[in-house]
């Protein structure tokens, strides 16, 4: 399928440039004339919001680097003693960046669940979805390394726990961990390489976001009905979605601003206001909230599975929980995209949401007693959803009749049901 490109309506110097390097035409087609479905709801705002959030993180991050010192003896002081106290507006930049990470994940998680609900991962958008999963993985790596940089005590112990996961890999595990650390423990070389990579990865993510948008615009946006729309059901991106996205941005900035100005430490563990101390293990080592569901899955495997020791099993389960998303376009066998027309899938979707929330809650609790059991049930259910329920459901579920276009809703009782 070849996209039709319209030449940008520019004259003079801009025309001269555009004929030699068609960046203006490119931007004009992607951001102005791009035909978007006219029925997108507000759940479709979160993609562009995530893109803006990435930009805010990069800009605030670049400014923080101007004042931060990546050294074990100075990192904590440079953040808490210098940036937060002596740098003009340093507290603002730091709180924007620290809370920005939480906001970024919140936006992206909503964006992902929107994709799950409306079947945005299905043909022809499989590659678009997979690029998105790669972005999520890189975001997690970036956020983890960024969390280590202030060199608080939770930073230090999170770095120790997470890097130690790689020691579960058979044969090469311990060597690999020593190589990752650049020594025999988490220390200055570790901090400095995390700093380097934390600066690098956001730009890789930025490039992938371009591919994500390119792949999206090649096949066109999905929509709440999940049907392929004809030209007459589409409207130009500008001004319709530029203004709608701006309104959404305003609402988001109010939420973001509330945290930055009135609850800036809501997402920061108190332990991280103490400097890193290798001799003082925090009683509960917990990751940031956006990692809690995965942390719960990691800790759910408390038993050996045949020849796989429990620790390796947990690591495999945790990474598997993300990598299963790569297979989702093929695990979901239903030809119908939108949950609006899949009455049973719709209910399983909400159970999955609940399951992930339970995993998140369990991830924040100590691994004792009932918490372990509930975490194991929720973990099992997570994989059950993707590996068993979705493949079978696509075969046995009877979807509601699909409308032909936006103007021709299905008539009769089935149509009335779909409108609900």
């Amino acid at each position: 399928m070849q996209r039709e490109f319209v030449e940008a309506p520019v004259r003079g110097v801009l025309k001269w440039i555009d004929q030699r390097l068609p960046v203006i035409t490119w931007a004009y087609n992607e951001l102005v004339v791009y035909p978007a479905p006219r029925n997108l709801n507000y759940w479709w705002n979160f993609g562009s919001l995530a893109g803006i959030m990435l930009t805010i993180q990069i800009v605030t991050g670049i400014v923080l680097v101007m004042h931060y010192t990546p050294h074990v003896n100075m990192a904590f002081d440079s953040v808490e003693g210098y940036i937060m106290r002596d740098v003009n507006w340093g507290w603002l930049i730091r709180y924007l960046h620290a809370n920005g990470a939480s906001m970024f994940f919140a936006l992206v998680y909503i964006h992902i669940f929107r994709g799950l609900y409306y079947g945005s991962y299905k043909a022809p958008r499989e590659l678009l979805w997979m690029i998105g999963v790669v972005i999520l993985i890189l975001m997690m790596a970036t956020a983890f390394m960024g969390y280590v940089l202030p060199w608080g005590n939770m930073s230090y112990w999170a770095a120790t726990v997470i890097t130690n996961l790689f020691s579960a890999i058979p044969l090469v595990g311990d060597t690999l961990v020593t190589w990752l650390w650049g020594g025999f423990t988490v220390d200055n070389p570790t901090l400095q390489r995390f700093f380097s990579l934390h600066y690098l990865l956001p730009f890789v993510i930025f490039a992938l976001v371009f591919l994500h948008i390119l792949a999206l615009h090649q096949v066109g946006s999905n929509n709440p009905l999940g049907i392929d729309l004809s030209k007459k059901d589409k409207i130009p991106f500008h001004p319709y979605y530029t203004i709608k996205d701006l309104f959404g941005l305003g609402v988001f900035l109010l939420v973001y601003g509330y945290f930055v100005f009135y609850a800036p430490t809501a997402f920061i563990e108190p332990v991280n206001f103490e400097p890193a101390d290798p001799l003082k293990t925090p009683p509960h080592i917990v990751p940031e909230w956006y990692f809690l569901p995965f942390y719960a899955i990691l800790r759910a495997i408390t038993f050996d599975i045949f020849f796989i020791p429990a620790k390796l099993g947990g690591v495999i389960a945790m990474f598997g929980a993300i990598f299963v998303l790569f297979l989702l376009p093929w695990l979901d066998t239903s030809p119908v995209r939108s949950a609006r027309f899949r009455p049973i899938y719709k209910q399983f979707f909400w159970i999955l949401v609940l399951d992930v929330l339970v995993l998140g809650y369990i991830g924040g609790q100590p691994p004792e007693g009932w918490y372990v059991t509930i975490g194991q049930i929720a973990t099992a259910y997570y994989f059950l959803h993707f590996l068993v329920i979705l493949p079978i459901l696509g075969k046995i579920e009877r979807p509601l009749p699909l409308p032909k276009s936006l103007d021709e809703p299905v008539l009769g009782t089935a149509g009335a049901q779909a409108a609900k």
Partner: protein
Amino acid sequence: MNRRLFRVLLLAVAMVLGSAATLLAAEVEEPPARDWPHEGIFGRYDKAALQRGFQVFKEVCASCHSARYLRFRDLAGIGLDQATIKALAAEFTVEDCCDENGEPFERPARPADRFPPPYPNDQAARAANGGALPPDLSLIVKARDRGEDYIYALLTGYEEPPADAEPPGEGVSWNPYFPGGWIAMPPPLMEDLVEYPDGTPATVEQMASDVTQFLAWLSEPTMEERKRTGLKYMLFVLVLTGLFYAYKRKIWSRLH
């Protein structure tokens, strides 16, 4: 499959998963919640309390605890004027480097100097405190769960130890708000330990409240600027969002 049976099953799965959220963690002595004047969107520090709290910090806490992020000049933030800060700094002696012979020398502190720590290093601090390290207080309110409430409860919560509690060493005290109960810090406050120049009676509760507010300020000295900026930001974004919404309605009305 029977639709109703199916729904009942779904509901059962949902309830089992949801019940996790109602499980409670093990009981610990929770500090009682108190009202602090600097809490909330319009909360501001009580400058008089901060100054009294600084006095308690200087005369009581600072004999064992450091506050390495506190510079004398920062005390402008609790309402001290430049002359007072200068005079205050001059009460302390700091080591500087170096004189014309390359030797370190001692001089009176200046406003740009940091508040001198009570011990030269952690080992010396431990040696003087029965092996326990008095934590630095620069970030203490942010570094503890429940922040101000915890600090206040700890300072005022010393009790006789329960009959069955075995002290882990000599010179420890019982405080139910401290993890484990036994704390190396002896009860730091007693009635009239300091004399407030403004005539406020120096009860234990009063001193604990004042010094807690001072420590809250020390943990987050930019809070007032943050909340003032936040108010302007929120109003601006609120108006902007309203305009965007109106404009969005106008543009989209072309489609209907």
